[in-house]
């Protein structure tokens, strides 16, 4: 039966890295805060229209907060409704926080003897690497094994921005900012760098969509590719919140995978000058 949970979990296990019809996002009410112990509210959903909760609430498994000092904690006041998940984060430290989730796993596709498509892990299940050799026939027709990683995040800063949370994990596709993500202004070009498994990679497809797509006819997406330094330079289309999506795949995978792919999404807020 098709439901939101199946959809989200299948998003996690998708082997193809083509643009997804649904976008998953975590959006803070504010990204720049002054004063002590601010509490920021967030909306999170999987939707068709950017930042409009028109489809399904984001499942919060794996959602957490990384504080400026590197400590990891849960979100507060979490509520998962039908179309939208909401939660709060108390900024008791000064500096930059990350809110998000990341996951990765093996997946395999092949054709059975009677021409039917088979895949592992089954829909809705997490891949257990120990099961791989048992569940995936080594001599299967058109066998394709890939290691896929997914990351979704956003950032808020209380007071002076800090860099502690940007230490790379070296796993999957991740964004290490050159321009701090909570210091973005409409008239100033920003530079973002992407790493795949810890290395700067060329050819990451980066798409940025400014909020308000409901109120215009075209998405007017900004499409970029990273250069050899793994960087893209963004010239903003004005102030507002942007949905950022990046994807990458190549054959530099660890056995038994022959391909690796990384997907990344983020929400960035650009202030007016």
């Amino acid at each position, binding site marked *: 039966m098709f439901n939101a949970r199946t959809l989200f979990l299948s998003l996690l296990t998708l082997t193809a890295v083509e643009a997804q019809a649904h976008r998953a996002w975590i959006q803070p009410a504010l990204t*720049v*805060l*002054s*004063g*002590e112990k*601010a509490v920021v509210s967030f909306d999170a959903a999987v939707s068709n229209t950017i930042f409009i909760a028109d489809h399904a609430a984001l499942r919060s498994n794996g959602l957490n907060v990384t504080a400026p000092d590197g400590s990891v904690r849960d979100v507060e006041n979490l509520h998962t409704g039908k179309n939208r998940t909401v939660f709060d984060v108390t900024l008791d430290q000064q500096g930059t926080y990350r809110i998000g989730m990341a996951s990765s796993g093996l997946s395999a596709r092949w054709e059975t003897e009677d021409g039917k498509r088979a895949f592992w892990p089954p829909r809705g299940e997490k891949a257990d690497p120990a099961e791989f050799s048992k569940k995936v026939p080594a001599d299967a027709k058109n066998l394709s094994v890939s290691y896929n990683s997914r990351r979704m995040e956003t950032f808020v800063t209380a*007071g002076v921005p800090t860099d502690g949370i940007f230490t790379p994990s070296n796993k999957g596709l991740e964004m290490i900012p050159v321009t701090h993500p909570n210091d973005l202004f409409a008239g100033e070009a920003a530079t973002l760098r992407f790493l795949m498994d810890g290395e700067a990679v060329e050819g990451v497809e980066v798409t940025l969509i400014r909020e308000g797509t409901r109120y215009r006819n075209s998405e007017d997406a900004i499409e970029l590719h990273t250069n050899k330094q793994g960087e893209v330079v963004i010239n903003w289309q004005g102030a507002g919140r942007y949905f950022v999506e990046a994807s990458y795949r190549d054959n530099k995978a660890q056995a038994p995978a022959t391909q690796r792919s990384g997907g990344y999404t983020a929400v960035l807020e650009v202030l*007016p000058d």
Partner: protein
Amino acid sequence: MTIFRQTALAALVVAAATQAQAADLTLDIQLPELAVAEYHKPYVAAWLENGNNEVVAQLTVWYDVDKRNDAGKKWLKDMRQWWRRGGRSLELPADGISGATQGPGEYQLTYSLDKGPLANLPEGDYRVRVEAAREVGGRELINLPFHWPTSEKTIVSEAGSSELGKLRLTIQP
């Protein structure tokens, strides 16, 4: 005896004459009367930047200093250019810099160019920046550029169109 007293007195008069012209920078800020149903005194900040967009000195910031538990600091970030140009690094309240919000009227602030943070400014282009943000209102940022050093009294005038009225910068070298 008499000659000594006269010489001493003359020396005092000469000394007084050379100290009469202290170099300073005066900023006149006008906050306009606004015909709005719900008026809140604006948060205002003024600071000095050099030709490389670097902050040279914080001049003044007006915010709700009296709120309990420093709750007035919550809206400082609405002065969004000031916030990233030193505002967020400033420990508030700051002696000689921060003060309470003001209502419509004219205010004059004077800063010494002989001593303190504005003393010995390197040669170059500068600008005093004034930013105002008002609760349930708007935000405005005005720049007052000047070149230093200058041998003559320099006046720079600007006018805001919404949250700030007339602004005047007077450099007295």
